[in-house]
């Protein structure tokens, strides 16, 4: 266990997000107001503690960072002005960059599908998103009932609207070092 401690984690997160996790004094206000806490494997204040301990491997493989819905409730309430949601973003990005075995691969797959769609069209289209995400997630048949209702209500646009200058959008993805998958 001792080998797996990364003393630089707090500093690395500060570099990425500007947040000083060392300021956290474990009051648990973030966890108390978190709407997704019931589904998390680590509560938000525990994530902060593990950052202070430098337990990087555990953090990059946890479910919590992916379940966090970025609702910003924690960031708004933290008495030490720590943007906890920003720290979650930092940990997610680190997990992807370091190729960690993520705790919620389906959620990562969703984000990946979402961004691929933008890279392709410059805009988000629900039909294209489903086309990218559903087959890969192995949930092709989920939501068939919903899809039928959406079709009926004109919510599914089969002809996606796209950006004319799609090259410019692709250039942004290339510059950001994100191929979209």
């Amino acid at each position: 266990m001792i080998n797996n401690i990364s003393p630089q984690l707090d500093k690395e997160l500060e570099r990425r997000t500007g947040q000083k996790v060392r300021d956290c004094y474990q009051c648990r206000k973030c966890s108390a107001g978190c709407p997704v806490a019931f589904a998390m494997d680590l509560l938000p204040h525990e994530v902060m503690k593990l950052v202070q301990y430098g337990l990087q491997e555990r953090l990059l493989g946890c479910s919590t960072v992916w379940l966090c819905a970025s609702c910003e409730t924690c960031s708004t309430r933290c008495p030490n002005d720590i943007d906890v949601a920003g720290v979650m973003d930092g940990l997610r990005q680190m997990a992807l960059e370091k190729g960690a075995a993520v705790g919620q691969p389906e959620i990562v797959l969703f984000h990946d599908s979402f961004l691929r769609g933008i890279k392709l069209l410059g805009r988000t289209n629900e039909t294209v998103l489903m086309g990218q995400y559903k087959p890969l997630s192995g949930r092709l048949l989920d939501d068939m009932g919903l899809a039928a209702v959406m079709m009926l209500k004109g919510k599914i646009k089969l002809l996606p609207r796209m950006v004319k200058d799609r090259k410019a959008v692709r250039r942004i993805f290339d510059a950001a070092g994100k191929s979209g998958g």
Partner: protein
Amino acid sequence: MATMSFTYYPGCSQSGSAEEFGDSTLAVCEALGIELLELPDWSCCGASSGHMTNDLLSVSLPGRDLAAARALGRDMLVVCAACYSRMKVSQRRILEDEELAGKVEDAVGADPRFTGRIRHLLDVLVNDVGLAEIKPRVVRSLGGLKAVPYYGCLLVRPPEVCCCDSVENPTDLDRFLAALGAEVRPWSFKTDCCGGSLSLSRTDVVERLVNRLFERAEEAGANCIVTACPMCTANLEMRQKPSKFGFSIPHPIPVLYFTEMLGLAMGLPDAEEWFKAHIIDPHPLLKELV
């Protein structure tokens, strides 16, 4: 009322699954004399997936739109709470961090330092147009509607970039609905998260959040929920009871956009078309209004 003119960033949902939000926005702005000039060749803001996975991407995607807005010079109007948040957060970071601004400029190929204001339509209606100006235009009072205002997350948080009057208990949408004649029911779930970003990937988690919101709205005696965000609306309308092949709605409380409420109260002719697009059919409720 002084004429207002904005660069309009429509956002993807407003020409897709939330067309009724986009259409009602255009209709009420036209009726109020607010000129909207669509941002030319705008692109997606990247939404949650952008900032959750790649920091530079999450600022550069809005950066492309900010660069286009900069070239036009007018303030920017946004209606989707999620786009609004991404635009404002990115603008702030670009203007405050010159190193980041340089990277975004390289990625976008244009200067993203847009210094105009980025406004949400609700903010403009409540604070610029003003409720005193809106009230006399109500030709059909919404009395009979018992509404709970649902702000969700991104219209109020983080408070440094957002427009509402309070972060824990905002009242902008409350006052707006009251001005239209609706009865605004008090509830403490105005700013609770619906879990939108997990809607497709962790439907089980979202189902729990969404049902709790409907139960609390029922407890508050509401017969409709009014929102300012296409993600919230889609999630609330679609995620009460996910199931593979069927589709059922245990809590048939309509979820409507604030722009639709205004259009209805102003007697705009297209309102009927907007309401047809809703998954939770608002017609039974709206019939009771007359």
